[in-house]
């Protein structure tokens, strides 16, 4: 993770101040109406305020009580607004960081791009349109997202990715996309603008985290309906209670009924719902991943198949030497030494890994060739061998058949031990490299695609979460199978073409599965678009970035796993707080119901298990608890509930215990404590 998107502390002073201001702005009815639970709370608060004014006016002695209830009901709304504003504030802070990458540069727009001359006019970047072609030279900022159509340049993308090492961008191929706000360090490029300023994926993201374009995601919508339904049910309960109480000659005031209603309706989750959604997006950005819709983040939680590129995600991407297998009569030590000599001038990762293995496992010091006449034989595509001539010693290494030819043997005609070793290596997906000295085979080097450490455990964790991992590789099926089993993936696609990927995704989707994948090339674009969650690499082509619904600024394909976790965490936070909110109601009944009917039915005092001081203080305490719990839970809403990669039933048991059972117990304690304070301060 880059330092740029550092995590601001939960209640950053600046953000909190701005949020406090916004919390008042959000009292506008248009904003309130978007959240049914909080809207009802506001309407009820207004009603109680009117009651308070009446009580003041006629002086019936309950104005202190109704005034306090009204105030706390308004606080409930305010706290809910504040929660949303804090989340938005944090999102805005992120957006500002992103926005800083865009500068109002002057672009050099080519006037006659077809004429192959370089006539240009200077225009401000915001005036560029899609399809314009601009020229960018060293030390200039790229004015907008685009595709290189001519030239090659090294580009500093640290403004976006936080990664300071420059990257090469060139026309054609998979590295032709450039991002607005990044700087060309050397050479020049001609860039075709693909997104007018203000419409790039960055802009879309900024709009999303700022909340301006926030639409309810499908799941958020379904939950809102449930919450609205609960609100309606409690409305029936409270209104009918007025009539039912009338039967026992008890007249319940609007104030107490309003208090009962607001404590029963799910204000806790209702007030935190949008904050949870915004915080989920925010967590993703902090993770240097940009989603173009909230829906994508939610879908990430549902993903049940991950398509992972082998190279870079599962393996390091280079074949590394892991074993020296000598022919009979040659010691491993001797083979290691010879192989080392053959690789001294080999600067490929394979060559360096041979040196490293010989030095590390066989403790062979790097030989000094100062006074020996050494002639290196470089690798050529024709002979497919390389090596070194050290005086008398003629050492060669290379592909098995090429080395066999070099020692004048036919295919498969090496010594049995040699053939066996070669076979074994091929069978397990490795690459055998034969070594010969002075026209004699002396052994085989085992080159292997090394699986990243810890990846197997991660795949196990994913399996426990019910997510299937599929490795995608261009390797042949034998090699692919070997690596797949070593890495512990559930399935693999060998010799994969972009069409294969697309076909696989479609087949899995037909079975009802949700697929996530990452990709960077233009030929990945169809698959990225087809996948439910398509994560394009920032280093990839513009086409790929447009096709996916997320962009990883760090271009790290392993992140797919974390993206899934962030999606799950988002849903879990919603579910847990909903459970908590509803479980809270039990205690509120025990506080309010005996208080309402103490005069008519003193017997109901038996239900006052908390031993609350007086009916007024019981009702007031329940209302205060109901308001304060929103504030208390803001950090949890922003951070999300802890996610652990365990089976769903285990996760459910845990969350039910914490938020279900906890949700029942906490308010009993909370209301009691507030009641002690309220009666100590003689507020009721």
């Amino acid at each position, binding site marked *: 993770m880059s330092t740029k998107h550092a995590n601001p502390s939960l209640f950053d002073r600046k953000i909190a101040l701005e949020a406090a201001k916004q919390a008042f702005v959000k009292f506008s009815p248009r904003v309130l109406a978007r959240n049914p639970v909080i809207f009802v709370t506001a309407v009820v608060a207004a009603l109680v305020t009117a009651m308070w004014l009446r009580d003041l006016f006629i002086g019936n002695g309950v104005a202190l009580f109704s005034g306090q209830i009204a105030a706390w009901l308004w606080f409930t709304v305010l706290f809910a607004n504040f929660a949303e504003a804090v989340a938005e504030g944090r999102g805005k802070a992120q957006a500002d960081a992103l926005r800083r990458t865009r500068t109002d540069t002057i672009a050099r727009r080519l006037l006659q791009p077809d004429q192959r001359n370089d006539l240009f006019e200077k225009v401000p970047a915001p005036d560029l349109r899609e399809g314009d072609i601009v020229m960018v030279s060293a030390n200039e900022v790229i004015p907008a997202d685009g595709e290189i159509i001519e030239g090659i340049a090294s580009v500093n993308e640290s403004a976006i990715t936080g990664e300071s090492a420059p990257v090469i961008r060139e026309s054609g191929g998979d590295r032709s996309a450039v991002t607005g706000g990044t700087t060309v360090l050397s050479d020049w490029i001609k860039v075709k603008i693909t997104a007018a300023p203000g419409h790039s994926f960055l802009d879309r993201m900024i709009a999303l985290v700022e909340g301006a374009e926030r639409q309810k995601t499908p*799941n958020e919508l379904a939950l809102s309906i449930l919450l609205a*339904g609960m609100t*309606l049910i409690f409305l029936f309960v409270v209104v009918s209670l007025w009539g039912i109480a009338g039967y026992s000659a008890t007249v319940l005031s609007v104030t107490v009924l309003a208090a009962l209603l607001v404590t029963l309706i799910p204000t806790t989750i209702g007030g935190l719902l949008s904050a949870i959604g915004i915080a989920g997006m925010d967590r993703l950005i902090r993770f240097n991943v940009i989603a173009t819709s909230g829906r994508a983040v939610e879908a990430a939680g549902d993903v049940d198949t991950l398509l992972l590129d082998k190279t870079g995600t599962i393996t390091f991407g280079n074949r590394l030497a892991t074993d020296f297998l000598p022919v009979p009569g040659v010691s491993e030590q001797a083979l290691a030494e010879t192989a080392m000599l053959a690789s001294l001038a080999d600067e490929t990762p394979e060559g360096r890994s041979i040196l490293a293995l010989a030095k590390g496992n066989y403790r062979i010091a790097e030989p000094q060739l100062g006074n020996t006449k050494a002639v290196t034989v470089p690798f050529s595509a024709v002979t497919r061998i390389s090596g070194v001539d050290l005086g008398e010693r003629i050492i060669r290494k290379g592909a098995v058949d090429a080395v066999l030819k070099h020692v004048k043997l036919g295919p498969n005609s090496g010594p049995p031990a040699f053939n066996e070793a070669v076979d074994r290596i091929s069978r397990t997906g490795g690459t055998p490299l034969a070594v010969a000295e002075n026209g004699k085979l002396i052994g085989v080097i085992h080159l292997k695609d090394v699986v990243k450490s810890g990846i197997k455990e991660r795949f196990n964790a994913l399996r426990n979460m019910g997510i299937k991992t599929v490795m995608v590789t261009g390797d042949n099926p034998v090699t692919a199978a070997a690596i797949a089993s070593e890495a512990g993936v559930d399935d693999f696609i060998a010799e994969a073409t972009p069409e294969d990927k697309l076909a696989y995704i479609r087949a899995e989707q037909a079975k009802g599965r949700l697929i996530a994948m990452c990709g960077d090339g233009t030929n990945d674009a169809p698959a990225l678009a087809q996948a439910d969650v398509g994560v394009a690499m920032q280093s990839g082509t513009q086409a790929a970035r447009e096709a996916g619904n997320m962009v990883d600024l760090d271009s790290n394909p392993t992140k797919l796993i974390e993206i899934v976790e962030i999606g799950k965490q988002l849903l879990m936070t919603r*579910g847990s707080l909903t459970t908590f909110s509803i479980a809270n*109601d039990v205690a509120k009944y025990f506080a309010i119901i005996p208080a309402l009917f103490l005069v008519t039915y003193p017997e109901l005092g038996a239900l006052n298990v908390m031993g609350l001081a007086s009916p007024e203080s019981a009702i007031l305490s329940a209302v205060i608890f109901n308001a304060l719990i929103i504030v208390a839970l803001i950090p949890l809403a922003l951070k999300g509930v802890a996610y652990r990669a365990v089976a769903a039933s285990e996760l*459910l048991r845990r969350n039910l215990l914490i938020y279900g059972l906890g949700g029942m117990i906490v308010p009993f304690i909370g209301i009691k404590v507030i009641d002690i304070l309220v009666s100590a301060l003689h507020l009721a």
Partner: protein
Amino acid sequence: MTFAGWLQIILVFAIVIAAAWPLGIAMAKLFTRAEPTGLERGLYRLAGVDAGKEQSWATYTFAMLAINFAGFVVLYLLQRLQFHLPLDPQGFSGVSEPLAFNTAMSFVTNTNWQSYGGETTMSHFVQMAGLTVQNFLSAATGIALAVAVTRAFARSEAKTLGNFWVDLTRATVYVLLPLAIVVGLAFMALGMPQTLQGSVEATTLEGARQVIALGPVASQEAIKQLGTNGGGFFNANSSHPFEGPSAWSDYLSIIAMLVVSSALPVMFGRMVGDIRQGRALLIAMLVMLIAAVGAIYWAEANGNPLLSQYGFASAANFEGKEVRFGLAMSALFAAVTTGLSCGAVNTMHASLTPLGGLVPMFLIQLGEILPGGVGSGLYGIIVMALISVFVAGLMVGRTPDYLGKKIESKEMKLAILAILILPLVILGFTAISAMLPLALSSLANAGPHGLSEILYAFSSAAGNNGSAFAGLNANTPWFNTTLGIAMALGRFAYIVPVMAIAGSLAAKKKIPQTQGSFPTHGALFIALLIGVILILGGLQYFPALALGPIVEHFAMLAGKSF
């Protein structure tokens, strides 16, 4: 509470499960069979039904509403015109308009609330051709709907839910009719009358003349229990010596009530291809039901402390109970008849102790799902399962699904619409009645007990139960009309959104279950489902119950009665 008492209770459940399991599996086979039998074919040809043509949820629901509406009209007219019709040995006159409306709605909705005394109001013809026919039809309607909802989970990307006429015919001809014949014959053997004669007169030992009502009791009694109808031939229902002649017939009545509703979850499990899913629903239902039996039994055995004060040897509450059946069987009957939407009674619920009376009332308010009415219990608990799974699904970080069907905003909207009906109707009508002098004049008791009577009546009507908290004179225009409306809303306003959910789910692709989706067949899900049902129900009715039975209980402990 005694060991023998508990033994009786446990034995009933053992027999029910042993009978329900094979019945459920046989029903799964019956409703998935593609080819109609010869008998069916004849019936379909007679009715002009194309049995091979499946219906969308809307067509299916419309067919159901149409036949039920027709049934309502016929039953209304039969009652109004019974003096023109045959088999009226007592020479009863036509039933009054509000009562005929109430009774027709009551039998069409499987409620079988009776504002009338059967033996003194209805002719044999109305009892047999009207009431008993509706007993079959309303029960078969419930089964058909449950089958359609089950298919929504069994099928993937389907546009249709089956053919209503086929399901209705099969439920009647192959499930209810054979069972009713067997149980009816058993009831006759156990001493229930079955005759077309009118009342007989007898001279009692004191020399007084007594009219003893008789009629086709056993045949109506069998379907009354099997179809969770509950409408008795006699006013006293199953506590009448002819409706409950012996402890054995009482035992058989309880088993007959439970068996079809308990078999339906088994059928559900079998049809969706995972019997454990049905088993989980059944366990959840029965665990709650047995707990309720225990609660009533405990409350009644503990009885009323006032009794001890007056020198009784035991405080146990025997008021309103048949000594022939005892406390255990009375508690069992009371819980079962309200956990189901049956409503037959062998004990007077108004005479239960306050807490003992709270339990049946609360069981009805939970939505008649333990195990609920024939069919309605299954689709009722499925709605609760959808809501449980929605919250639970979120808690494990997935868009929730039940049996591979994603639950999205559309289903949520419809599920909410369905569960809104009951509290709206029950609390709404109770509140209005509690304020209305016109309604209050029907009350026999003052104080919280009177409120319980009203609350129970509307719960019973909206929940389509039909049992009563005696003491309320419901045969008034106000109660006949409002209770009739409550019954209609409780049945049909609930069914339509449920069928819409079924239609929407059937069209969805069945997604495969993984480790990430949490299992809906284990103990955890059962516990969750029970928790959601109890908390949701409790939150809705706690205030009303607090002012009725709960305050009455505390008052009783303080030595005050109403």
